[in-house]
């Protein structure tokens, strides 16, 4: 099971950091999800849901926003490209209500980072509050799941990271691609200078001219709020849940 809450100093070599989080080197087809939730019960459930919904899913579960930022290397002033930037993350799923840093605050921090802003972020919450949902979407969240999380919810998440896999197609130099937290389109020139660029080559915010591998159900093509929030696959109209 994934480790959580482990602290390592920034700039730690990748292998050391990976060990402390219980990770092995990334494999080409593997999807890596970072799950953030203060409840151990929920962490266990979401991890299992993710693993069942996608065979090649590796899950790192941490207990707080701070831990998540530490994992990503965003917790210091230093540029995250120092050292262990090959810990690629394909999706971040976080609880909204957490002590310390809320999921919303974590979302903001991620979207403010040039290195990580393309990573799709999904928010979970037991409260079905429209204002909260809108706020998260406006801040760039891909989706909002009302708890308790079900298999059908998690299956929907595939859309957010699978498109990138399809589009990325075959990228030979996996190691090089793994050095930054994005994969590259086959026809993109890869230069070290691209490390700090924020070209969204993998997220669903690709330009419309990209091949039609984006699923039609994808509701947001840009970080700003989607045109019709109500039409999105967000399961917030689960009216049976209490307010």
């Amino acid at each position, binding site marked *: 099971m994934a480790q959580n809450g482990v602290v390592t100093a920034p700039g730690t070599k990748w292998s050391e950091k990976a060990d402390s989080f219980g990770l092995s080197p990334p494999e080409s087809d593997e999807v890596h999800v970072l799950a953030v939730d203060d409840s151990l019960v929920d962490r266990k459930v979401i991890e299992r849901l993710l693993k069942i919904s996608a065979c090649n899913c590796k899950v790192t579960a941490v207990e707080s926003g701070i831990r998540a930022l530490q994992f990503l290397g965003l917790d210091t002033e230093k540029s995250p490209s120092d050292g262990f930037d090959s810990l690629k993350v394909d999706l971040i799923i976080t609880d909204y209500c957490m002590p310390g840093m809320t999921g919303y605050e974590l979302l903001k921090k991620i979207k403010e980072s040039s290195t990580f802003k393309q990573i799709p972020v999904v928010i979970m919450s037991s409260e079905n509050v429209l204002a909260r949902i809108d706020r998260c979407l406006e801040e760039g969240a891909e989706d909002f799941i009302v708890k308790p*999380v079900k298999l059908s919810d998690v299956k929907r998440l595939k859309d957010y990271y699978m498109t990138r896999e399809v589009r990325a197609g075959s990228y030979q130099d996996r190691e090089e691609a793994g050095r930054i937290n994005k994969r590259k389109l086959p026809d993109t020139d890869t230069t070290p200078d691209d490390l700090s660029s924020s070209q969204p080559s993998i997220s669903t915010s690709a330009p419309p001219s990209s091949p039609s591998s984006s699923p039609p159900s994808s509701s947001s093509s840009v970080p700003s709020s989607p045109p019709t929030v109500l039409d999105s696959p967000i399961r917030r109209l689960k009216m049976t849940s*209490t307010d």
Partner: protein
Amino acid sequence: MIGMLGREYLKLFYKQDEGEGEVAGVFKYQAKTGLPLWMLGLGADRLWADMNRLLAFLFHQGILDEQFLQLQQLQDETSPNFVSEVVNIYFHESEKLLRNLRGLLMERELSDYKKMGIHLNQFMGSSSSIGAKRVRNVCVAFRAATEQNNRAGCLRALEMLEQEYCYLKSKLHELFQIEQQRALAAGVRYPAQN
């Protein structure tokens, strides 16, 4: 109300009992031989029925909801004890929360209602994640009392919460025991019986 899901579940798996003897706790014994069912090799089916009867009861009473079924769907050969693992974590966390709540409410000076609310949110969240519907509902009422700084209401709610939690725990233990016996029974082989 079992709900459609519960009824379908029941239809699929319920089988008629066939002359069972007395029940000693959750271990059913055959009247003729006095042996526990699981030893007889016939037990698996009946224990399957027992388990589903208990589940149907728990759904009907609103103690569990469909989220519990979702957990069961996550259990398979690669993770054969998933449900009991998660539930045991839930028990552990819940008991800690209940102790904290009682501690906060028993404080001589002003009770920290806000802190209680935070604990209750956690309790509500984990309860809903495993499908513990009634426990969760009591948490909701309890939380409302904390928002009004209503000490008497909180005390009543805490009592009810402890009761509901204890009941849930005993029922889930029962469920897991039957499941264990079923696993044992399924592993026992006897010559074919008519």
